[in-house]
């Protein structure tokens, strides 16, 4: 149960991280977002 809640939390935050990368104007800040996003994607897919 709690694992499902966390899965949803990660999904919600992944969506926001992608949104952040798209809206952000500065390239280096976009890159900052992307290195964080990678982890969220891998956890979302239950790979790592």
């Amino acid at each position: 149960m709690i694992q499902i809640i966390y899965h949803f939390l990660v999904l919600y935050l992944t969506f926001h991280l992608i949104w952040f990368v798209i809206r952000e104007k500065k390239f280096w800040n976009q890159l900052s977002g992307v290195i964080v996003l990678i982890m969220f994607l891998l956890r979302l897919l239950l790979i790592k």
Partner: protein
Amino acid sequence: MKKHQATAFLLLLLAALVCFFAGREFLTMHEEEAVYPSPHLTIKKRLSDYFPGLKNSPGDSSVYIFEGQKMGGTLLILGGTHPNEPAGFITAVLLVENLEVTQGKVIIVPRANNSGFMHSDPQEGNPQRYSLSTPGGPRWFRYGSRLTNPIHQWPDSVLYVNPAGQKLSGTESRNLNRSYPGRKHGKLTEKIAYAIMQVIDNEKADLAVDLHEAAPEYPVINAIVFHENSAELAAVTLMTLQMEGVDIRLEASPPNLRGLSHREWGDFAKTRAVLLETANTSHGRLKGRPSATLIINGKDKNYMKAAQLGLLFVPFDEDGISLKQRVSRHLASLRALVSGLHELHPDLCIQLDNLPNPIEVQKVGIGPYLTPSK
């Protein structure tokens, strides 16, 4: 498309690529090495046969049972409680591939925490596998994590109160050797612990041995940790090993350290509980470059320096402490424990044939005792 949108698109593509390539490597951890049981294996079961709550879960794992014609004692051997302690795991595999039991019963669980074998610890830089050469070519084995894979048990709580009532930091909830006697409806690691308790109960194990390794800077090392119900057995074993020239010491299981196999197996399942430790450089905090070679030959210049500074609890020189030495030590201890059990309780005799000779293993290595890969 604006410029920042174009870069965003490219960067998201990059993220996807990194996920693909890194993810592919992470997923290889789910692949299990081959184990070729000896022809004398009586039956192969799963932990879920003892506790159906583990069925189809990543915590389920193979249980190899060797039963002799003659009645005798029952021995349980656990390898891979901590999948980053290879000597325990390899010793269990060697037994599965070689053993013949003519009297009594031997139960072996090489991958006690199967989920931990599918995970590698962040910031440790460990290899995902290592290979041992056999006469028929190399065979690879998994090097995992001390803890259950977080994708199988998540999130860690703030504080973990284990089934024996001890307060620990949250990550320890994924440590199998802090989760005994387990919980039937608990977290995955607690369920694994519960299943192992069921094995001990159902099979009426007279002696249960948990094979481990520790960092050379850890005080309890080259040691037999025993529950007070096996104090006599431990003492007899120590004498046998000393006569064989194996330098080892006894450590009584501290009564206030709860949730560990050598405590709860004895308290709850009333079996003679013993834990064996050897010295593994590859999971110490002082280790140099982590590699498969470090796992196998155990040579490390940082540890040599630490030994000179008197910081270690084992002798350590330029020869290192190799995997074959550590496995040999586990084999010798197991043999001595079984003979000690027989000496103290003649009705609990366990006849182990084809047990790889510890001195030979130290001389010729582990490979010759492994079945060549098919």
